[in-house]
């Protein structure tokens, strides 16, 4: 067990990590950032998605030791104070959720997509989001939310 330093949501946190300790368990169990979810443990459902230097990554198959010195963003770090990120707002506006357990991962993946591609087509959205599972079946609303957020980001010049 060694002590590592992680930059999460702009703050430096200390955590204990073995070679096999996942970023997901550090976030949830040590830093109490439970917005990042466990869904499958093999990177197949996207519920655990976080941003590493602005790019989406599955925290359940990421060893904590490999992201030292990188900028880690979780769902808790997306809003600026009381002001929601446009993607969070778009998910609310489209009511793109039912049980919402997939929502944090969906939002983090979608933010990553817009970072890479500010104006994705419906097909590009579906391709990029393929690895995120929603069992309640709100997919069409999630696609609409991503399109809405893309427009909002563009209009706000963010």
């Amino acid at each position, binding site marked *: 067990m060694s002590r590592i330093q992680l930059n999460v949501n702009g703050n430096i946190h200390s955590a204990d990590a073995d070679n096999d300790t996942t970023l997901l368990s550090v976030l949830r169990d040590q830093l109490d950032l439970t917005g990042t979810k466990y869904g499958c443990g093999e990177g197949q459902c996207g519920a655990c998605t976080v941003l590493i230097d602005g790019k989406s990554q599955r925290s359940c198959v990421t060893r904590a030791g490999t992201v030292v010195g990188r900028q880690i963003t979780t769902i*808790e770090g997306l809003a600026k104070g009381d002001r929601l990120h446009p993607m969070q707002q778009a998910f609310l506006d489209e009511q793109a959720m039912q049980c919402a*357990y997939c929502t944090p991962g969906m939002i983090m993946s979608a933010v990553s997509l817009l970072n890479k591609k500010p104006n994705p087509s419906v097909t590009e959205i579906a391709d990029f989001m*393929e690895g995120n599972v929603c069992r309640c079946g709100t997919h069409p609303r999630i696609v609409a939310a991503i399109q809405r957020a893309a427009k909002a980001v563009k209009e706000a010049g963010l």
Partner: protein
Amino acid sequence: MSANEKLQSLVEPERYELNRAPSYSFELDRREFFKLLGAGVLVVSVLKDAHAFQESGAGRPRMEPLPKEIGVWLHIGENDLVTVYTGKVEVGQNIRSSLTQAVAEELKVPIEKIQLVMGDTKLTPFDMGTFGSRTTPTMNLQLRKVSAAARDLLIGLAAKHWQVDRQRLVASEGKITDSQSQHSIEYAALVKGQQLTETIPEVDPLVPATEWTVQGKSLPKVDGRDFVTGKHRYPYDQKLPDMLHGKILRPPSFGATLAALDTKAAEKIPGVVVVHDGNFVGVAAPSGEVASRALAAIKAEWKSDPQISNQELFEYLKKNEIGGEDPTGYPRQHEQGSVEKALSSADHRIEQSYTVNYIAHVPLEPRAALAQWSGDEVTVWTGTQRPFGVRKELAEAFRLSEGKVRVLMPDTGSAYGGKHTGETAMEAARLARAAKLPVKVTWTREEEFAWAYFRPAGVIDITGGLAKDGTIVAWDFHNYNSGAAGIQTFYDIPNQRILFHPTRSPLRQGSYRGLAATANHFARECFMDELAHSVNMGPLEFRLKNLKNDRLRAVFEAAAKKFGWGQKKPAGRGFGIGGGFEKGGNVATSVEVSVDRTTGEVRILRVVTAFECGAVVNPDNLHNQIEGANIMGLGGALFEAIQFQNGRILNGRLSEYRVPRFSDVPVIESVILDRKDLPSAGAGETPMLGLAPAIGNAIFDASGVRLRTLPLVPGGLKIS
């Protein structure tokens, strides 16, 4: 017993998970027991409880009438907030919002002043569970009655306060206003924090749907912000100081028993508690990683018997019928006229068999529970659709009175009928008792696949007789194992025999969204197309010829109209339709598919569902449920199936079990028929029922290939 109560007490036979004994029967180590309970006096109370437990029966749901006291359901706080108590739970169907609407509508309080306490066995009235699409027809109605009674009471209090005639007083926005003097008084000032001890009157007219101002509108998820920010804590996210993480030793196959066990190495790991009690072996440790290491250090040998594989499944079901009366008393058989006579004199006679595989719910949040003991009382936070049922399971397993067990259900990451049981609650409570610290048990995805329960597999055999003009004269329908929900035909057929045959099941099975109505509608509605084809009639025309029910005709016609039924289509495309009636809802779904003749690939291009469930409470949420039911339904219709062999699940992880993903999702349109003249019915299940047969029928239309097994195209369409 009112019609509503009757419906509530009716537990369909295929809720197999409720009719079986709980998963654990603990011996409970006696030293641990005395340490926990202390004095000998308590032994007496334990014996008494053990006796009471025998009298109450094993694990069966029970019925209690809804309490009539307003204060049990609703409290107006001095802070002006209205707190509402309901045993129903939130799993994504958005009833926290729709029940808030019910209260706001009748109590005349702004939405933001209402908070719901849901599924807490200490605070909320008894509730059998959140299933069977009962929340809207029973709880929405109950909370409207309670709120209307509270409103009338408040008007009375204001009339007394001002010494004026109550006819002058109007309730609105959380205040009573005197229409003559224009004086207003807040509800909170009238109630002064007191409990509303009055009861709901026998007769009290509710606001009719045509005059609703809050119900009938699209209220967004009331606490949506907590979900998009990650703030909401699901059962998996619960935490307590000094909490340990628990893990359970699983046998290598179903039904295996321990032959030898060595836990010494695990016990040597610092901070680890090992518990072996009957068929239960588990560990608790300060972190999940240490718990996993401890579990891996346990040496166990198991004994098991050979078991069948999914290749032999359907043959097995047909050969393993269980006779005798159904313990639920559910009618298994429906018979009218003479099927034999009608079949022998029919112009056409067709016989077909349909099969349905086991599928898994795959709730994105696997089962989880956090348990904490205080003396001989235990509190458990867990994701279950039956908090009161789990309370009973815990009370029985630990020989406690139910008053010593509190189960709370934080809004949970979906369930779909798959979370009726309390496995993790029992596991966490057992470990916490030995560890004397709070313990959380969170199942892995693999555990959720293997140790929960599946939607029942089934075989459905149908024989139909037709007159030349397309009138159905005989209907002989036999369902083996999958269940009796939705088994009755809604077509007008003079001679019918409809029979559910319970059988032994090689896998643990139980409730799944829609129950067996999905299987029964699949078989019935595909067979309807086969009958139509035999007399060269169009599928829609054939259905309408044999269907009198106006509500059902209306949804078939609405779906067909929106879809453009009968329009021209390119080669390789097919149209299909299917529908039915269940749990107070009427559904018809029309589907367009494309079939690639060379690759065999089937794509669902378009789905149109027309749905009618009486007066609509929340239109946008209803659209959301219809879309979601169809998308979830795509999995079971097209490719989801559990493979198993010798007591093991072969594809029990998300990399091996395919669920619908973004690229699978077609254009989905939903048409809602809002019948403000009819009571509101639930809508979480029935919208799913038309999809599978509509797809099967559309594939036949596109390719001439009739597929009779769910899932239809596990590896792409095979054209033989």
